[in-house]
């Protein structure tokens, strides 16, 4: 899949933002006044900024409101609703903290639930796609959730929580990579089922339908980027998990904390790039490329 910057930024930052909102809503920290304002501002900048980034790849962002209508079937629609509800609920909760120094605990919990729901719906947009076997498995939502919560914990300064969650996330990520490489083969979809010609012999793509490019090839076939996958995986592990954990475990310093956050963000961006770039869509079979 084409690793579009808008989607990478969206999933990375909204994941972090909603992760932080989750911990705020849960009341793991309950800042008040101006400090609450700053905490919430950070969370909202991440969450809303991510959401806004996601509209950049829309053909018609001005019609975005229509996307709330199909919650019965569409995970994208559900994500929209979940995110807006969450943002509103937690805005009230936050307002309580900022202006009244009062945590409306129940609202906070509802908001926290909304925040993981939002991250879950986001992950399900990808997980539901049978067309991308690498995504179509339980590790996808698990990873999205662990990363969001771990990253949120990092932002929220929850060292222990963060370390535990990031270790878990790294483990799931390693597992996802390990299994992911085989997902396409295991999915049962191949040249033979794509073309129905397998009874005759071995099928190979000969000429593509157009010598020029097209939307499908741009969107779904990303062979070039995958060449450096191994290297990038190592970098992502290092930046996303190992460095932040080390920085968190050495005696506390704001600089180190900030570096840990930056490193983590860079790591997750890399992870997300890989998430897309390594994902192979079955349509590539028709082009003899994945």
């Amino acid at each position, binding site marked *: 899949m084409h690793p579009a910057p808008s989607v990478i930024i969206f999933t990375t930052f909204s994941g972090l933002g909603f992760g932080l909102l989750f911990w705020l809503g849960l009341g793991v920290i309950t800042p008040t006044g101006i400090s609450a304002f700053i905490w919430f501002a950070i969370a909202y900048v991440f969450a809303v900024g991510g959401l806004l980034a996601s509209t950049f790849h829309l053909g018609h962002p001005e019609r975005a409101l229509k996307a709330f209508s199909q919650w019965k079937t569409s995970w994208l629609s559900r994500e929209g609703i979940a995110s807006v509800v969450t943002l509103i609920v937690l805005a009230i909760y936050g307002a309580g903290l900022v202006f009244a120094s009062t945590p409306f605990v129940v609202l906070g919990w509802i908001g926290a639930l909304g925040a993981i729901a939002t991250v879950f719906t986001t992950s399900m947009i990808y997980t539901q796609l049978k067309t991308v076997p690498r995504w179509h498995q339980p590790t996808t939502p698990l990873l999205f959730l662990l990363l969001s919560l771990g990253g949120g914990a990092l932002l929220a300064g929850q060292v222990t929580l963060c370390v535990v969650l990031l270790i878990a996330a790294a483990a799931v990520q390693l597992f996802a990579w390990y299994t992911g490489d085989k997902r396409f083969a295991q999915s049962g979809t191949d040249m033979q089922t794509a073309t129905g010609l397998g009874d005759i012999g071995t099928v*190979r793509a*000969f000429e593509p*339908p*157009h*010598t*020029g490019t097209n939307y499908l090839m741009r969107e779904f076939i990303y062979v070039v980027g995958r060449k450096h996958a191994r290297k990038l995986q190592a970098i992502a592990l290092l930046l996303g998990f190992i460095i932040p954990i080390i920085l968190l475990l050495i005696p506390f310093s704001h600089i180190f904390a900030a570096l840990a956050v930056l490193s983590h963000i860079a790591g997750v961006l890399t992870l997300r790039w890989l998430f897309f770039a390594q994902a192979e869509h079955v349509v590539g079979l028709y082009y003899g490329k994945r």
Partner: protein
Amino acid sequence: MPKDQPVVETSPNVSDEVRQTTCYMCACRCGINVHMKGGKVAYIEGNKDHPVNKGVLCAKGSAGIMQHNAPSRLRAPLKRVGPRGSGEYEEISWDEALETAVSWLKPIRDTAPEKLAFFTGRDQSQSFTSFWAQGYGTPNYAAHGGFCSVNMAAAGIYTMGGAFWEFGQPDWDHTKLFMLFGVAEDHDSNPIKMGIGKIKERGARMVSVNPIRTGYNAVADDWIGITPGTDGLFILSLVHCLLKAGKIDLDYLARFTNASVLIDQDPKSDQYGLFLRDKDGQPQVVDRRSGALAPWNGQGVDPDLSGSHRARGITHRPVFHMMADRYLSDDYAPETVADRCGIPAPRIHEIAADLARVAFDEAITLDRKWIDFRGVKHKQMIGRPVSFHAMRGISAHANGFQTCRALHMLQIILGTVETPGGMRFKPPYPKPATAHPKPHCKVAPGQPLDGPHLGYVQGPEDLCLDAAGDPARIDKAYTWENPMSAHGLMHMVISNAHAGDPYKIDTLFMYMANMAWNSSMNVGGVHAMLTDKDENGDYVIPRIIYSDAYSSEMVAYADLILPDTTYLERHDCISILDRPICEADGIADAIRWPVVEPDRDVRGFQSVLCDLGARLELPGFVNEDGSAKYTDYADYITNHIRRPGIGPLAGFRDGGDGRGGVNPDQLRSYIDNGGFWLSHVPEDAAYYKPFNMGYQDWAVKMGCYDVVQPYIFQLYVEPMRKFQAAAEGIGSRQPPDHLRAQVQKTMDPLPIWYPSAEAKAEDYPVHALTQRPMAMYHSWGSQNAWLRQIHGVNPLYVPTKIWEANRFADGDWAKITSPHGTITVPVAHQASLNENTVWTWNAIGKRKGAWALDNDAPEATKGFLLNHLIHELMPPKGDGLRWANSDPITGQAAWFDLRVRIEKTDTPKEVQPEMPPIKSLVPKAPKILRWKVGK
């Protein structure tokens, strides 16, 4: 229906008006419905009533709208202001353009008309352009047939009065086994596809013989991946098998072919190898009823295939004996030819057996009565449901004429030509060589030529040689180098004109041929010849006038450009005098008419010729008072009379169809009828056309010819023997010594096979071919925004064996070298390919600056022409002569004799050789297209 399901407008207005005309995205000439909205072309689809395409349309046809709107369209007459080849031009008025042309053409007509060479490329109005050239008086006229398929056409005409394509087609409704030789697309594009679809629907079988298995060949039930250039041998081997097994249609051979005609067998006789004729000159046969001699066409005669005859001490044997002698030889045994053809011997046996089985065991009969020319009444029409079709794969080789003859012989011995289930002619064919004119070349200053330029020679006396025995034509057509060059040799014009051999010319006038690119061999050489200057600094070819509709590679080399309209903007006439659109069951012709008016200062080329003809006062173009005879081409189409009762269009004439007087409303009638006219062949005349009196009478009535002229198929072509005899020293017109051996060997009156001229196999082991892409027409499809997305680059396809030997991988490039040069191009792997053959799509490669494409267009950076590797002359053989890369009988360009070697190379910046860009003659093209004319 769920209440929130959107309402879709399922009956939108399709168009304000439908205008029916004829497609010209290729030469197939399908009928089209042009849907108009607000006076603009909105959508093009096939015309369901049209005899050619019956509603279907190919990719090019549907993309016509993008052709019609192409940014590459020329916009006004142009005068060259920079050096030739630079692309520097200035727009001028039509008056200036025409006056310039007249100022060049008038003086040469008055002094030496042969100094004009007028060649018309992909012309669909040859009966008109040749009429113009005849009036002008130059012998130097032809269209593109010489580099295209003259082998196929001429071999067909000489053998049986027509070939495939517009001459004939398989009997799609009845055939049970269809065998296709060397066709990727054909001119009959849509009909072939429709035919293949039809036979598949009926469960009939299809065998393809082609080194490459794509397109039609990919859907064939059996594929014979033959080695290029060896089809003749394979076919003669099939003939060998069939003769050996006696699986031949004896009755058909005896009655309808010259297998029964007697031939002089005495090597010492001056008639050796010629027909035994009676005092009326009619070839003789032995009549089985009496055992006596009889003319072939005598009433009631029952020709004997077996009886020989001795007269005045000379033995005469029927042609059939000579055939048996030759083809039963083990030289043609499958076991002998297998390796050479790349087809296992058992496979050849299998195919022979299959042909015989279907032809004889599955014979079909139609209960239709008919009477043959000997007065014999037949109760039924018996069919041998095996049909063949072939095109350039067998014709574009230097042994193509004889190979095409061999194929015709194969069909004929099976009795499948013009019988149900076999190959059927399309009126006005069949028409034997003798019913065609002979070539004419007699020049007189200020006078028209003594007759039509092109035709069919019957012997050395008909060659176009001057008193000294030198070529009369600039292209050396109808000379000992290529005696039966029935379509001329357009591909030799530029090099001969440049060399001043046989003489110098003054003006080269060309129409619709991209001679500076894909229709020339030796492209770089042609550029050099077109721009070469003599010691005085003048161009060696002094003047070039060219008519094109688009900014092609060729326009940059002209001194004066006459911009044509697009096919939707002009009148055209697809005439029975020319190359009509008939089908086996009907005679038909068609028009194009301006469904939209041009929005540029351009004029239909034929109208321009009418104007030029009048300004030059050519006979046929001026009235007695010297005024212009035709205001434009439409006027000519309506009012021109070729022979009494016969004009360019046969339909809706005054007094009837076929023959009749001028009908001033004729074009209107065509438009009202969908742009064409069609009249059906009567049922009892539908088969056995050459021999069927029902057909003969109908053909005369329709104006196909003026008198009934039945004939029999010429398995033995006597005119060829006359040339051969001359080479043996007989007769007064003698070939030059260096050509004697070639003429003697190749002009064999019975089909033979010889290896086509080729480079040394050790140095150049690989055959290199091109194929027509179905979605592109030569060079001119690339300016089409939709089509160029399908074919924007053309890799060289390499078979598995060569792919692996070179350790090629996807995306690799290779150097391809022929004796003539080297190109560096991208390669791709294909397994369904003859193991010694590589190929690419034809004419995808483009020159930078042409066709309104950006200079970095993939066509120019990755697309390429194989033509750079092909030369119009063979590599020197050490005999001091340069032999032409063409068929020694017809002069057909031998495109497919190319041999190369391949080596892997680093990926270059772009294809090599790189040519400097030409300056575009048109403004820059848009960056985005959203073509919707309705709201």
